[in-house]
């Protein structure tokens, strides 16, 4: 179950950890009851400050994905899916998606390839 971090990315490492773990949680690769690596262990393996990992775990705990205990460390918990997303979050999602597409285009990725990736993602979402 890999967590990937790109050291050359403009996205802060803290955000990459949160995003990477969230993908694993949403896809069911991390399930309720699973123990997360300790803050110290993950920070050592990634070569980042302990606070960076601790902050990422706190963010995911605030989102309801993790429970953090002083003795037990971070553990994945059963998370109740919100019943209804608020209308503003839908707009924010569309804006973010457009921004991502524009960013990829500006890096030289073709429209066709972006469309294929989006279609593949949509297929995966519909299947699960």
């Amino acid at each position, binding site marked *: 179950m890999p967590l990937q971090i790109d050291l050359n990315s403009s996205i802060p490492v803290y955000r990459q950890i949160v995003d990477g773990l969230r993908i694993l949680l949403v896809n069911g690769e991390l399930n309720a009851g699973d123990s997360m690596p300790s803050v110290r262990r993950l920070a*050592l393996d990634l070569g980042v400050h302990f606070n960076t990992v601790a902050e990422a775990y706190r963010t995911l705990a605030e989102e309801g994905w993790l429970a953090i205990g002083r003795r037990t460390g971070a553990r994945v918990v059963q998370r109740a899916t919100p019943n209804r997303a608020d209308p503003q979050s839908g707009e924010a999602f569309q804006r973010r998606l457009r921004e991502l597409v524009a960013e990829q285009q500006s890096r030289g990725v073709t429209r066709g390839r972006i469309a294929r990736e989006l279609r593949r993602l949509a297929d995966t979402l519909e299947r699960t």
Partner: protein
Amino acid sequence: MLLPKIVFTVILMLMSALFSIIPGLTRPDLFFAVTVAPDFRQTTGARRILRRFWMMVWTATLAGIAVELATGLTLVSLLILSAGFLGALVSSHGRALAYAAAPNPVLEVNLVAPREGLPGGPILAFLPVLSLAGLGLWVGLNWDRLPTRFPVHWGFQGPDRWVTSTPATVFGLLALQAFLCLLLAGSAWGVLNLSRRVSTSGSRAASERRFRRRVVQLMIVAGFFIACPAWFALFQPSAMLMNVWGAALAVVMLVFVVSLIHLGQGGSREAAAAPAAAEGDHTPDACWKWGVFYFNPADPAILTEKRFGIGYTLNFGNRWSWAVMFAVLLIPLALAGLLLR
């Protein structure tokens, strides 16, 4: 008179031979502490650097042997050898920098990598310290049964240096041995818990785990050997037993050294396949001063894999490393001073 010089010459040549093979034991994508393409070693540039390195090492060795044979100044001979080794390493590191490759910026960490604990558990690792603490307690309760003097150095024919038994010398000796055992057990724990795992999944991770385990086993076994002389000093068994201890120590250490050479740094020689692209050890080249000293304040690891040699070194960018360094240097010196006063 000639025999010690011949023995010393043989030791110097063995040291140089060992130093000469070290570049071949590092990770395939690290060459003289510089991240390079995994197939760089087969190129003409790499071979040229290696030949020059060997030439410098053996020139220093021959100079050291000549000084020893002509003047008998062993310390000067060792200084020449050390300077030659360091010069060869720094020079080769500088040349290898011209071929540096950009390491893969993407780090991958396996979140379910197996947890690694001290082999045999923490009690076994700290048993030498506990045994010395027990010996100290016995000494405190049975002071009258101690000999009036005890040996602090042994030759082939038995003890050749003695000190009078006083509370300062006896407890100084026990404290010194206990500190060294504690240092080894602590280092073994540190390798598992305060160093970075370069690979966490796949066959390379398994080889790396085996390497780490072997290093930790070496430290734990060495702790048991180091605890023995305190018992020998106070109970004064036959010189034969001390010789057996010396021979066993040499054999066990040799077995570990051969095993670590077989595994290669980080288990890289045993790993099924070299990395496809330059990965290095996930530490920046710029943080390796002279290719030997690792200084990276942004890295939380206190211990990191050596880039030249086998085993681990301190991250001098971490303030705790300096605390460890001072403790390692000052505490044994203070206790040895107390013992030999």
